[in-house]
């Protein structure tokens, strides 16, 4: 009893009774251990990261031809890439959560130089154009025709992501927790991409347009980051898969 008596704790005195102090110390250590174990477990159990890269702070120079439609694109000549289509095709976006529509306005078909940072993953590459860096160099000498092939009508299951974050500006840059950010990006003009995971092999990325080939940024917003089924015509144009489908026919799963 006497021992217990001494164990009465009074917080405003400057030291606690000895017996109580050691019990308390042990309990605090146990609590902290619990917290750190929980934190360690959460750290280890995160899994939805993808090998995307955003070359933040590294500006490179590019020279090539602008395509305004369906989404701002730069075609850069690669003589070493063979005769079939000797170009690299980059989607262009502006810094933060904005597309490059205004940056390339009126430059369709023109050769330009620009500076930008690369965002890439899985062999898909995008350029975040540095502000004010686009310099027109005149009309392209030879008009480029994009080699295209029809893949026919397909029904695909996947998720709408914003191409910039998904490729690497954010990570994880998809799924539920990323929805708000993807909505901001797509609403700001970043090209929406339909991401289809296959049972085996690499994921497929489809640039999304409506049946007439127009941008669908506004129309697809309510569907972003949700599991969807989309039926439409698929076409490969200059190395990029494009999905032509009416947003009113997207089906939530």
């Amino acid at each position: 009893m006497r021992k217990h008596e001494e164990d009465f704790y009074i917080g405003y005195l400057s030291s606690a009774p000895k017996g109580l102090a050691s019990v308390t110390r042990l309990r605090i250590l146990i609590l902290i251990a619990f917290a750190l174990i929980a934190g360690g477990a959460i750290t280890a159990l995160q899994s939805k990261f993808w090998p995307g890269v955003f070359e933040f702070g590294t500006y490179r120079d590019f020279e090539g031809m602008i395509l305004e439609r369906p989404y701002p694109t730069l075609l850069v000549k690669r003589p070493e890439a063979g005769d079939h289509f000797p170009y690299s095709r980059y989607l262009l976006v502006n810094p933060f959560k904005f597309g490059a529509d205004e940056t390339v306005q009126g430059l369709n078909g023109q050769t330009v130089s620009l500076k930008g940072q690369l965002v890439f993953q899985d062999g898909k590459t995008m350029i975040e154009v540095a502000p004010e860096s686009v310099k027109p160099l005149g009309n392209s000498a030879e008009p480029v025709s994009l080699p295209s092939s029809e893949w026919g009508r397909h029904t695909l299951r996947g998720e709408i992501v914003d191409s910039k974050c998904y490729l690497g500006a954010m990570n994880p840059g998809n799924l539920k927790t990323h929805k708000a950010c993807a909505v901001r990006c797509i609403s700001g003009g970043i090209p929406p991409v339909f991401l289809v995971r296959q049972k085996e092999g690499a994921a497929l990325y489809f640039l999304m347009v409506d049946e007439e080939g127009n941008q669908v940024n506004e129309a697809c917003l309510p569907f972003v980051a949700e599991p969807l089924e989309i039926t439409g015509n698929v076409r490969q144009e200059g190395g990029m898969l494009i999905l032509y489908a009416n947003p009113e026919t997207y089906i939530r799963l």
Partner: protein
Amino acid sequence: MSHGYQFVGWNRQKKLYDLTLLGAVLSYLLLFIVGSIVLHPDAVIDMIILRALGTCAFVLLHVILAIGPLARLDRRWLPLLYNRRHMGVTMFTLALLHGLLSLLTYHGFGDTHPLVSLFTSNTRYDSLSQFPFQPLGFFALILLFLMAATSHDFWLATLTPPIWKTLHMGVYVAYGLLLGHVGFGFLQTETHPALFGLLAAGCLTLLALHLAAAGKETKLDTQDGFQQDGEGYLKLCEVLEIPNNRGRMFFVGGDRIAVFRYDGRVSAISNACQHQNGPLGEGRVIDGLVTCPWHGFQYDPATGASPPPFTEKVPTFNLKVLNGSVWVHPNPNPPGTYVNPGLVEEPGHA
């Protein structure tokens, strides 16, 4: 001996408490951030930091909510309860940083004001799997802010205890909102079953502790069948069943009464401390004053009043000692009413 919120300084124990808390929080953040960079080299650093902050706040909230019932089940947890306010403010700070960083990362730098985007970027309130989880975090943060901002005893005195206590019960509402925030958010993206298990374990532990603590109090609350005399006094116990300078709690007539033996005398006052409802019956009589086990508020056992300059008063109960038994009248006197202490008839004190 007298003290109060105006005068309590930054003593060694408080410093130790704060240093330990700070050390634990920093260790957690460091472990999470370095661990994530090593295990997941592809992750973007903002994501890691905002997850470290969010989970740290959430884990700390579990600790905070566990300490209340733990202290009711075993008094030796009380030293942790004493400065729980500092844990609360720390938890709020972590949550605020997490919220701000999330707002900036997910909603900032775009075509819409972040606070507008917070409520308009996802409106699928009709779907469980797509339910907007970020507004839940936002409202929890507002509640935590109100509590952190009013956590000082100055606000307890200003708002009056009933309002203050109601406001601070809001922590359970905040916890509920955060269960939704994490369940409809993080756990929909990161779907490892062990993460779900971890959340369930935390939630069920809190539930079990609260039920156990409530069970202990119900046992006290269902005491019954005291012998009653012609004047309405109830025979509660024998004097010698109360250890010297300590109290015993009884549930009588809808009230909890704390009966103390000290200095050869016996007095009965209401069990609920005016500060935050601490159980006075679990306190001690120190220098002739009943001292609350939670934060040390003191009351004269004969009058129920705090010594000057303090003004807290609790109700007293009429009491008599007959043949070594304590008889208490169940009707409370107005707070601060002097009642003649009963005299203990034992050798050396009579």
